[in-house]
């Protein structure tokens, strides 16, 4: 199987979707001739031209707002918000307009819009260029939220997102762009709401998503050396998320740890824990433990950021705790 970088997989999904459907258009800053701040859209401007790869001024509110208007008028815009932190400038269009139009208008119309938003730290980029804000969007009825971890999933989820009649937040961890992985020759679209068992195990279920997957896998390996057999579930899709798969795993392992890069408090993990403390209560043999970022802004200095970011060691400690 071909190897492809995560960022390239996104670029390929965009290109294939644009080839397949002339109504797919791209919105964003520096995505045209320059090929995008992280090179994800490289070549698309040259292939599809200025009419379909729209290099926007620095106007995030208008990027998503006009994308809603174009989506209501027959197009399928894929809008890039350069750093997820800048979604703060486009919340009205995402939350009050895109998410609600189908419902508010009684089902007459839909808003087939994708907002691509790179999240995550590790670049020493500081508190305004590192946030993982997916929990906000998962709380908004009408939005879908996905967050791939592998190139194949990046491809497949983006194709599904673009084909979806609904607005989708498509979240890319910046640390993954350069990461290579398998890419099938005919990569498939991946349905929303289906998790992937990244590693099968009997003793503890670890639920994760995005770049955190790789730390989870590392922790699972370390746990194996301690005789703990960890099942790692990569959610892939956060809204909807695959409650059935998580519950099924919990019913086998009876122990649950949730792991993500985002701030732990009020993060995505809270919902998963809360649901399992309800529908999975009878299966639980141990407390549900979450491991996420501490409740603080992302610090700048490498030492501080390193101490800040959730890692395999902290996850392993949590795994050991629920095994007690």
């Amino acid at each position, binding site marked *: 199987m071909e190897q492809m970088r995560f960022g390239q997989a996104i670029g390929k999904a965009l290109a294939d979707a644009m080839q397949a459907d002339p109504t797919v258009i791209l919105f964003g800053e520096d995505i045209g001739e320059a090929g995008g701040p992280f090179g994800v859209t490289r070549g698309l401007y040259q292939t599809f031209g200025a009419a379909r790869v729209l290099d926007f001024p620095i106007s995030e*509110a208008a990027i998503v707002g006009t994308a809603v*208007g174009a989506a209501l008028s027959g197009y399928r815009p894929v809008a890039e918000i350069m750093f997820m932190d800048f979604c703060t400038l486009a919340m009205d269009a995402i939350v009050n307009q895109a998410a609600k139009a189908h419902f508010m208008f009684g089902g*007459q119309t839909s808003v087939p819009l994708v907002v691509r938003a790179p999240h995550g730290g590790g670049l020493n980029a500081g508190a305004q260029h590192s946030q993982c804000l997916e929990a906000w969007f998962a709380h908004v009825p009408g939005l879908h939220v996905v967050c791939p971890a592998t190139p194949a999933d990046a491809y497949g989820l983006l194709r599904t997102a673009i084909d979806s009649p609904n607005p989708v937040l498509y979240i890319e961890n910046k640390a993954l762009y350069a990461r290579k992985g398998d890419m099938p020759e005919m990569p498939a679209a991946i349905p929303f709401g289906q998790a992937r068992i990244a590693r099968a195990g009997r003793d503890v279920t670890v639920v994760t998503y995005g770049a955190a997957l790789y730390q989870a896998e590392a922790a699972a390996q370390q746990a194996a050396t301690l005789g703990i057999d960890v099942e790692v579930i990569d959610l892939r899709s956060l809204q909807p998320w695959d409650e059935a798969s998580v519950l099924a795993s919990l019913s086998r392992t009876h122990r649950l740890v949730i792991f993500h890069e985002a701030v732990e408090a009020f993060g995505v993990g809270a919902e998963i824990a809360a649901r399992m403390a309800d529908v999975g209560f009878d299966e639980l043999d141990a407390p549900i433990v979450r491991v996420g970022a501490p409740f603080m802004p992302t610090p700048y200095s490498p030492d501080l950021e390193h101490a800040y970011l959730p890692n395999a060691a902290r996850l392993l400690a949590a795994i050991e705790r629920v095994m007690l």
Partner: protein
Amino acid sequence: MSKKSPAAAAGSAKTDDTLLACYRAMLRIRKVEQRLSKLFADKEVPGFIHLSIGQESVPVAISRHLRDSDTIAATHRGHGQALAKGIDLHGFVAEMMGRESGICRGRGGSMHIAEAKVGMLGANGIVGGGMSIATGSALAHKLSGKGDIAVCYFGDGALAEGIFHECLNLAALWSLPVLFACENNGWGEFSRTDRQFCGKLAQLAGAFDVTYRFANGLDVADVTQVAGELIDVMRVDRRPAVLECKVERFHGHFEGDPQKYRDPAELAALADKDPLAHARLALERAGVDPASLDALDAELTREIEAAVDAARAAPQPDFASARADVYAH
């Protein structure tokens, strides 16, 4: 209304025809909103409703130059904008009354009324919320190349929102066929706009090299003329334009607002600033038989009452189906 051919006519008979058609469209909006006012007072219409009484000339005039495939983004004060664009009256009234037969199945209401198939992309509860939607729709029109245009309705209060600046730039930069139509009633809720916003719209448009025109909203013929000129050019040159219309807000910000914050003299003076009365006078002066206008009134009453009756008879919306329809399938 939305199917009429563009541009104001030259001959006076034709002018009278246009005026009569505008009068009819304005009267229809007026009577619908007066009926809504009553329904609101009687608690048959819930929520917040913002009536456009006194402002009907603007959407009526603009819509004379629009076709179904043109699009509009409307405001919270958008009943006239919606009706002038051709939204179905039965669906409209039923929506206000929160019924299953409402055009949004009772889920949207006054601030979220929409009818996709006549190019009405939705009223908006967010001041300025429609601006980028209209601009994006104009971008779609540009890309699809069918010669359609988008109209962005907004109030003078919305001028202070940053999104206006972003959209004006984009529309000018990329030559998007969008008409920024400002219904300037001098107020944003309970505050006078001249104490809130000090930019001059003509100059703002000029800074982006966007054509600006002013029209007197008291005179629907003037608005029709100016809007027609702008739209005729826009169909060809595909450039944005700004149209500012001075109008008056007769009712409160929302129904139930007694407007105590307005000078009684200002309120008293409104009677002379009614575009509907103004049009009627012009028609009568042009020799139109007043009786025929009264007959028109009666005809519209029947149409509206039929819609109200139908809405009253319609079922309440079904929660389970609303619950199941948050996402399109």
